[in-house]
């Protein structure tokens, strides 16, 4: 069973988004996603101050198996990126919800967080896609 913390919300493309105390939305990929990807070897992040749109590409994560796009779960401006992933992409595997975070967005509005799944819905979504194999 993969870890799905309840303090985050989730996109169908397997990013998690967590609203921080300062109003920014921190983004990473879920435990389920990192397990599916396998060992991550490279992460490409957006630029700070870059505008991102919900559902649009904002980065790339590359594992020994595949290269996958990272989509911004909400629209807004990138305010911080996790530069430690450049030298230590394995953090995505080791601590997907903590040190393996990708970037933080100052969201244009708080509404888009509501469009994402909560932990229970996301777990169900992952189980359904497993069953769909």
């Amino acid at each position, binding site marked *: 069973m993969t870890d799905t913390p309840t303090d985050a919300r989730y996109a169908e493309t397997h990013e998690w988004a967590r609203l921080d105390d300062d109003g920014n939305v921190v983004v990473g990929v879920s435990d389920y996603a990192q397990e*599916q990807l396998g*060992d991550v*070897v*490279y992460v490409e992040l957006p630029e700070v101050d870059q505008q991102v749109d919900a559902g649009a590409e904002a980065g790339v994560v*590359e594992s*020994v*198996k*595949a290269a*996958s796009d990272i989509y911004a779960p909400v629209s807004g401006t990138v305010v911080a990126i996790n530069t430690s992933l450049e030298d230590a*992409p*394995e953090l995505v595997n080791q601590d997907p919800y903590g040190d393996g975070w990708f970037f933080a967005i100052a969201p244009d509005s708080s509404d888009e967080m509501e469009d994402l799944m909560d932990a229970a819905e996301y777990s169900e979504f992952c189980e359904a896609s497993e069953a*769909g*194999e």
Partner: protein
Amino acid sequence: METIFDLARAQRRAGAQVPAPESVEDLPKTALREHLPALPEVSELQAVRHYTRLSGLNYSIDTQFYPLGSCTMKYNPRGTHRAASTPGFLDRHPLAPVSVSQGFLACLHELQEILQRATGMGSVSLTPMAGAQGEFAGVAMIRSYHAARGDTGRNEILVPATAHGTNPATASMCGCIVREVAVGPDGDVEIEALKAAVGPATAGLMTTNPSTCGLFERRIEEIAAIVHDAGGLLYYDGANLNAVLGKVKPADMGFDVLHLNLHKTFATPHGGGGPGAGPVGAGELLAPYLPGPIVEKTAEGYRWTEPPHSIGRLSAFMGNAGILLRALAYALMLGSEGMQRVGEFATLNANYLAARLGQEGFDIAYPNRRACHEFIVTLAAQKRRFGVSAMDFAKRLLDYGVHAPTTYFPLLVPECFLIEPTETESKEEIDAFVDAMANVLAEAESNPELVKSAPHDLPAKRLDDVEAARRLDLRWQARKRSL
């Protein structure tokens, strides 16, 4: 494993093959080396043994079964090599004038015509030197076409999830935005998703048919109509042409431009075994934009010509000439009847292999569809039950003396193998592969550790591909020695 430098001993020489040294007195000092070249100091016999031993470690289509899905690793007939090695071809200088190159040009012209007939495209340019370059040419042609009409807002390329893996990269390289189109549970493109994706920004759609799942896209004509109605064009990636060679022409499916991989479908050497060739074919609309040069037949003989609105040159001279000649020899050896048998036997072999693996307890993706030249096995159930992944399975197959199928591609299917036996394998060879797969499956159940730690019988054991990707180190450096 020992390198030849590990065998070296100081002052050991193999001089019999070395030409007598010439005086270097006339050369300026700046042209003279300061250090001795870092050559391995070994005897002639040591050198011969070392390289003979290495050649035995080589894995190739000439030695073993190579079911690498999407790559069409078929036999490269020796007759084509012989034909292309004719001294008249080998000794011709690429800058030789057209007047003394009529035979060579006649061959290229004939290949252009054969590829035109095989694809239904009115014009073919042979110059792209690889599949990727062919794709690049095709999308650049689509962009030029829209630009020439002043339709500058079209910058999106639609790519179904079952398209070839290189297609999104090509679209990006050509400055386009990639829009993925969803695929339904039956493996065909979702028509509603396509309708929602097309619009005034659509430059075109890139896809293979059969798809990367080895399935024939049954609604291809409807797809073509939707894209054309939206003002976009259709690009056919020839990666999987082997399945339908001599049976279906991409032009008849509604495609406007395509590339062929001669190193797949037309049996020229492949990958590390030789340079590629990715000719581009186009219908009436895009023919003026083809990369040059193209061979033209006139009353006075053959000559080079440039298409009027060509996207330009993609290679010096005429692409990989030796490869083009091999492809021509292959096509002539087959004839049109033989070409049809390629598609038939490629499909028969794949379906036979899929059925046999199904009987042995493997899960075939899209079990309700008929496979084309390749098919997908998913090992997701084995991973859940025994903890043995597709990669572990692949590594263990190496111990059985077969090249592993393509792993983890396409991305749509988890823990997958993409398996393409090609038409040139015998039933016995395919049966032996089934036995190897069945053995590994039994081992996965009874002794999963054995599979997870494979390979055991190869010169190199399990490689650390994660470390290799994270800390890429491709340089080997010889020690400098002073004169």
